[in-house]
């Protein structure tokens, strides 16, 4: 867990020692301050849309508050939040997959044919290409990739978060990164 705390928290030691005496409200405040942004970003990578991502993470915080009496420790609460965000994102996507897969494809096509000219527009276009490519990956591959390479979780932590074996994490990671590089090969060369 330490690698996560180091990456996500400005002062990890304070949080870990202070957390033992928190009540549920304090836990929400502290974890919100430390992780709201990174969890929303995580959710954006999973569901693409920032508004939906914020709702997913907001729901996860409310659920964590209700469960605090059993979590009690900041690192357990953070693990719960991550797992909740992944599950809730998956739930959102299940709805969406049926309803507007078609719309999504049209939107992607639109984005590709109408790039802006300035650097900001090019950045935006690149980001939406990456999000679109992630959205096209099988669910497990997408989840493993963002937990591994965005949150920097270990294979064991990803296995716990997703309820899968470490072997499965390895294989999803390798297939997912190959697929992503296949879809974004142009960007890969550009940045290398």
């Amino acid at each position, binding site marked *: 867990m330490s690698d996560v705390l180091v990456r996500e928290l400005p002062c990890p030691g304070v949080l870990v020692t202070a957390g033992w005496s928190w009540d*549920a*409200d304090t836990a*929400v405040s502290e974890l*919100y301050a430390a992780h*709201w*942004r990174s969890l*929303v*970003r995580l959710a*954006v*990578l999973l569901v693409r849309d*920032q508004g939906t*991502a*914020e709702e997913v*993470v*907001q*729901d996860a*915080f*409310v*659920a964590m*508050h*209700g*469960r*605090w*009496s*059993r979590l009690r420790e900041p690192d357990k609460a953070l693990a719960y939040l991550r*797992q*909740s965000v992944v*599950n*809730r994102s*998956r*739930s959102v996507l*299940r*709805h969406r*997959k*049926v*309803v507007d897969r078609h719309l999504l494809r049209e939107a992607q096509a639109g984005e590709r044919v109408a790039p802006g000219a300035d650097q900001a527009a090019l*950045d*935006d276009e*690149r*980001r939406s290409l*990456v*999000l679109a490519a992630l959205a096209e990956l099988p669910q*497990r591959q997408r989840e493993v990739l*963002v937990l591994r*390479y*965005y949150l*920097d979780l270990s294979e064991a932590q990803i296995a716990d978060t*997703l*309820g*899968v*074996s*470490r*072997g*499965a994490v390895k294989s999803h990671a390798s297939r997912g*990164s190959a697929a992503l*590089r296949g879809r*974004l090969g142009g*960007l890969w060369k550009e*940045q*290398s």
Partner: protein
Amino acid sequence: MNHDEDWLRRLLDDTTAGIEPSDRLGAIRQRTAAPARRRQAWLAPVVGVAAASAAILGSVALLEGGNDDEPNPVASEPATARSGDPSGWGQVPPAAPGTRAVPAYYLGEGPSEPVLYREFRRSEEPLAGLDQSISALMEEPADPDYRTVWSRGDLISADYDGEEITVAVSAGVAGARPAGLSAREAELAVQQVVYTLQANVGGRAPVAFYVDEGENKSRLAAQVLGVRADEPVRNAPVLKTLAHVSVTTPETGQVVDARLPANGVANSFEATVPWQILDADGAVVLSGFSTAEGWTSNMLYPWASEIDVADLEPGGYTFVASTDDPSGGAEGDGPFQDTKEFVVE
């Protein structure tokens, strides 16, 4: 760190770098300030979305509606099992070609008293009518934790005219409550019939119980197993009658290899449906939780997970889904649970 991994890190960091979420701490505070199980207006649209999606996915949403005097909205019960559901998330287990899955309700134990659980029964007859459903109620359920109150011969036939369901029962059950049957069990026995037939017709039609007197004569039963039936019986409130978590898949005895599809319906705190897989000795070998599509109204919502079981040794296991109990047992009677035995090859 190899070049490929480094590239992925930079790619995802770059993609999210510009995202500055709006501040929602106030909204979170507002939701966590009140007691946990309140119903608030801000949740209403979520319920609508969940219900609509349930219908789209062909899954079974059990809606109670706010008022028993009004017709209850019911998501469509699929007429046939969606064995070809490409998403793999359908709530109805796949059936072999030419067969269908018939939902039937059986008694099982809840935290404090018996409740009804749903099980999908295989039917060889592609166009099974209501008789198929009452026949299922007089058979032993596949799940050994469930039981039925009805014996062969108790329920004779059933019919539906588009507004009301009629059931003919034998004279033996049209009377006082038999010794050895608790009032709760008798109530649930009647609701077994109501819920099962309503699921079959896909609507909350009231159920009229008739006593079969032979020679094509029948009369409305005053009581069935001691439960008043002098007018058509409506479904009792969902959350007071049904288990708050129910597992559709895996089915009892299902054989899987690398992955276990798990789904069902639940109404659980904050939509959280914790699950565990136990080995033959009862030790927990995998655990996690699924998230249902809602939790805030008086209905059950679909949940689904896909669990990687590739690392489990071949053998018999038990899948346990439960409702979430944020108090850890300190309040109330504890969580609902539904278990299914399955086999890893």
